[in-house]
């Protein structure tokens, strides 16, 4: 598919509506992206034609559902460049993927006095699971500091790395600032000391080309719904040799090889980590989302989003009272800001009255907000279907709102 913006917008029914009497401008893409028609169609068709429980069914519908489900696993493998589909585990979302690693890898391999490193810009979902683990095991959580632009301080990171470091769990692209972290270098440095690395890819997978073999990360966690796919579905990629060493997460059906009342033996990966009936319909529909992204290519998507971000930066930087938050040199299309003298919640509600959907608050990154000495920000985040004229309307709106307190 060529990059034709009108055609792309035509694929997203939800964009074509008015809110408060104004055409909707959807800039809350870092929270969740909208879904193309192909995803909606796949969901409906699954329930209309194929609905059945997967694996072990002795009938045609179960066969079809199983085949489509496993086809998505293969599509995810291809999407992130993993070696084999068995390294792809379906979860509820990024949060569950991270918790899975904490509760299995973490509980088995991280003990008293061991160290886990995260960064200042982590989402709460990449902080709390490690705090819980550290509390249980007597392990130590260390945090990489950042500069004013919102970039990690490399020298400080190197100082934190020690032979006791068992895991570095770091966000690939920050949800609150947009910063793209130098994860390849982080992984290399961590591996040099024998530590494993988990990448939180919730915000990166829709914007950046991902090649887990080239990155050499041990784990990658991401969500389908931030990637034009359905809600309630996520992925955990792990290297086979690491996944095989990990104990199961949830116990139940599907994850077992044999159960007796004396002892249970566990299934192979990935099934060992997919207890119970999975989210079959959403997994199947997710393939349509991946196909949509692949057909456009991330290179073209990113070029478009970068142009939107550059346009926004240019228009907004001239507004009196505009305070950008997060000015890293490498960013995905996230524009976080405040307006001098105004609360982000008020700004967000005033933009909503203009039909512009943004997110306000701490973006589940309270320690990061504290680092900047602010309560929160207004966050406009752009996706493939956004347009330059929408950016111009945002800038006009922000300028008008900013004038209330910045004359």
């Amino acid at each position, binding site marked *: 598919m060529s990059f034709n913006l009108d055609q792309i917008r035509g694929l997203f029914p939800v964009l074509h509506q008015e809110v408060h*009497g104004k055409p909707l401008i959807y800039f809350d893409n870092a929270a969740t992206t909208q879904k193309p028609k192909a995803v909606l169609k796949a969901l409906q068709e699954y329930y209309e034609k194929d609905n059945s429980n997967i694996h072990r069914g002795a009938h045609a519908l179960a066969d079809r559902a199983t085949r489509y489900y496993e086809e998505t696993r293969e599509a995810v493998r291809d999407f992130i460049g993993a070696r084999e589909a068995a390294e792809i585990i379906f979860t509820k979302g990024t949060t569950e993927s991270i918790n899975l690693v904490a509760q299995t890898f973490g509980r088995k391999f991280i003990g008293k006095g061991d160290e886990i490193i995260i960064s200042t810009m982590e989402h709460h979902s990449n902080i709390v699971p490690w705090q819980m683990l550290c509390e249980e095991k007597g392990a130590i959580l260390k945090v990489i500091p950042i500069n004013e632009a919102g970039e990690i301080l490399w020298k400080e990171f190197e100082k934190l790395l020690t032979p006791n470091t068992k895991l570095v769990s770091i966000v690939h692209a920050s949800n609150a600032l947009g910063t793209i972290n130098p994860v390849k270098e982080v992984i290399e440095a961590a591996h040099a000391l024998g530590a494993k690395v988990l990448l939180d890819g919730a915000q990166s997978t829709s914007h950046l080309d991902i090649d887990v073999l080239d990155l050499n990360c041990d784990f990658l966690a991401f969500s389908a719904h931030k990637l034009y796919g359905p809600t309630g579905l996520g992925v955990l990629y792990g290297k086979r040799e690491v996944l095989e060493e990990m104990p199961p997460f949830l116990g139940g059906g599907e994850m077992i090889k044999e159960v007796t009342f004396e002892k249970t033996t566990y299934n192979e990966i990935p099934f060992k980590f997919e207890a119970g009936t999975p989210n079959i319909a959403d997994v199947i529909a997710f393939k349509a989302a991946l196909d949509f992204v692949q057909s456009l290519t991330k290179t073209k998507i990113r070029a478009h989003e970068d142009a939107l971000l550059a346009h926004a930066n240019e228009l907004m930087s001239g507004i009196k009272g505009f305070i950008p938050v997060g000015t890293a040199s490498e960013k995905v299309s996230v524009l976080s800001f405040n307006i001098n003298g*105004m609360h*982000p919640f008020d700004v967000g*509600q005033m933009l909503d*009255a203009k039909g512009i959907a943004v997110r306000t608050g701490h973006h589940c990154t309270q320690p990061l907000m504290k680092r900047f000495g602010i309560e929160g920000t207004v966050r406009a985040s752009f996706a493939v279907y956004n347009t330059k004229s929408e950016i111009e309307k945002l800038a006009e709106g922000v300028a008008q709102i900013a004038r209330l307190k910045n004359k």
Partner: protein
Amino acid sequence: MSTIKEVQDEIVSEFEILGDDKESTIFYIMELGGNLKPFPESERKEENIIKGCQSKVWLIADEKEGKVQFQADSNTDITKGLISLLIRVLDNRRPDEIIHADLNFIQKIGMGSIIGSQRSNGLAAMIKQMKLYALAFQTKQNA
């Protein structure tokens, strides 16, 4: 002095002039925040905070000649406007009037859809706290 019902009717008719335009309604609510009396800095403390999801509200109450006097502030302008409406309706009234006040103006002006669910929950918390203050003063008067 107008009754609670009369003040509420006034507010409803003021909002009717604004019609369905959400933007001007929000700007109007923000302007109303300017009517609040300056809040005493010494009272800006944790125990006087009513916590909403994203905005903070400080509320204190006093009693003068059997009537309840409210003072409040917020860190967001829209919330300030909402408090100023509540104070306009409930300030300087007897505790029993406040306790039994049916604040139907909120529904009549469609406040829920103007301010959204987060702030609506905050607004409900403010009303509850104002009524609790009134109840406390009533108990004291009857003691």
